[in-house]
Structure formats: C-alpha cells, structure tokens
C-alpha cells in the first residue's frame, strides 16, 4: 500500500490523471489512518468512491473537510462498513458536491455524538439516496443535517424512513419503498 501511495503521489504511473473510481474493500484496519486520504488526494479525476466492508478512519472525513480533496467526488457507496457511525456521517457531510449516496449494511455502535451540522456546501438536493439496513441513527443524522434527495430508495424497516421522506417531500420525484417482510 505504501509503495502504491508513493507511486500515485509521484504520478510515475499516470494513475492520477485517469482514475475516476476507487474501491476500498475488505480493509479491516489501516496501519496508517492517513493513508487512504493520501491515496485519494492525488487522484484529481476521482468522482466515485466505494467503501465496502472496510473501516473509514476518522482522518478521512477530516482531510476532506480541510479541503485536501473530495470536491470532485459526486458518488459515494458505503457497503457493510466496519466502523462506527460517526466517521460515516462525517464522511457523507464532508463531501461538498455529493450527488449519489448509497448506504447498505448494519452499524451497531454510533461511536459517540454524531455530527449534526447542516450540509453547508450542498446547495442542491442529492440526485439519489439509497439506504438499506439499520445504521443505528444514520437516517436521523441525515435528517438533522437537512440532506434531501430527488430520488429516494428506502427500506421500510428503517426507523427513519418516514422522516427521510418528509425531509425530501418538496424535492422527491421518484420514491422506492422496499417492503421487507419482517418489520
């Protein structure tokens, strides 16, 4: 990983000029929590980020919030995260131009107080918000942050499904309800 980070940062392999999508997959821990941010900030064409069964270190949203990178990222997928909810919420709220957000999985531990600041830089609603699973207060955090979307895809068992619909009531054009059997 370190060597790859170095290669990317030096631009010696040309990666930084054309990589548009990055997936972090099956990463249970980071030896250096700054490493993922160090990779991403050298990818100037990056528009899509997927975190699958991996940890999101607290440093990653902090780096984005400081403006080190992330302005071009419009698509964020988080599948079965291996971390508490706090860095997930911070990650979502830190991306200023997010358009598509897809979250799936379960988180039991909130990891402390969740960020509640409004999505300050997001002038427009999301194009698409998908939420599936139980994230221990994620929906409520998104509602409190005034995040809205034009298209919503929600699992009915989510405790915040109604609040999310209500928050986006003025903007939602397409609504998909996944009616799970065990409510």
């Amino acid at each position, binding site marked *: 990983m370190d060597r790859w980070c170095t290669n990317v940062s030096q631009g010696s392999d040309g990666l930084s000029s054309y990589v548009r999508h990055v997936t972090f997959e099956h990463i249970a821990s980071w030896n250096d929590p700054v490493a993922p941010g160090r990779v991403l900030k050298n990818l100037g064409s990056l528009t899509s980020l997927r975190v699958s069964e991996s940890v999101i270190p607290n440093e990653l949203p902090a780096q984005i919030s400081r403006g080190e990178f992330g302005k071009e990222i419009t698509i964020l997928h988080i599948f079965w995260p291996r971390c508490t909810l706090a860095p997930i919420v911070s990650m979502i709220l830190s991306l200023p131009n997010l358009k598509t957000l897809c979250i799936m999985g379960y988180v039991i531990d909130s990891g402390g107080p969740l960020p509640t600041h409004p999505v300050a830089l997001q002038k427009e609603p999301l194009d698409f918000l998908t939420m599936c699973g139980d994230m221990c207060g994620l929906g409520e955090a998104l509602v409190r942050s005034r995040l809205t979307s034009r298209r919503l895809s929600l699992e*009915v068992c989510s405790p915040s499904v*109604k609040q999310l*619909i209500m928050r986006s*009531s003025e903007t939602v054009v397409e609504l998909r309800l996944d009616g799970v059997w065990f*409510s």
Partner: protein
Amino acid sequence: MLGLPDALVDDPLYEVIDLPVHLPSLPVLTTLTIDLCVYEPSPRLTNILCGIPPTPTLTCIAVRCNERFLAEYQGRWVDIDRWLARVAGHGGSQGGLSVMLINWPEGMSV
C-alpha cells in the same frame, strides 16, 4: 391530514409500528416503486403507503415482487387497493396513472 383507513386491521401475527403515519404532500412525485419480498405488503409498508396523501403529479406506480420468500396470499391488498383508489381518484392524477405489476408469477392474482 389523512390518516389510516378505518378498516385497516392487521394480522395479529404482525407488528405495526408508529401508528398513525402522516406524511406531507409530495408535490413533485412522479414515480413510486414498491418492492415486495412476498406476495403481499407488510403492515408497515401498507401503513406508510396509506400515509401518502393524494399526489396529482404521480403518473406511475410499479409493484415488484422479489420472490425472496414465499407466503400465502392473505388479502391485505384490499388496503393497497383503497390507497390506489384514493390516489387516483382524488381530483386527479394529471394525465393518468399507470400501475405496473413486475415479476409476478403466472397465475398469481392480486
């Protein structure tokens, strides 16, 4: 503000959460997709649908059966029918309302 239909009686086997549901108007909603795991909606889904007020801009409702689980048809569709009738007949879905049934097995009637 519209509430639940009076006749909505849930099967005692199921738990209904957060009654009643009151959702605000959805003034620009054009498409509603309902994914079912079984051949009938869960009480909670029915609850949420019944909480959606008439939506004049709604032009398409798709009801998709995922067939992940099998269950006996138990007639809960009468509540959905009532909701559809209310949505479609409340002055007006402008330009008509289409309802699509997707991925339903042959011979299955709703």
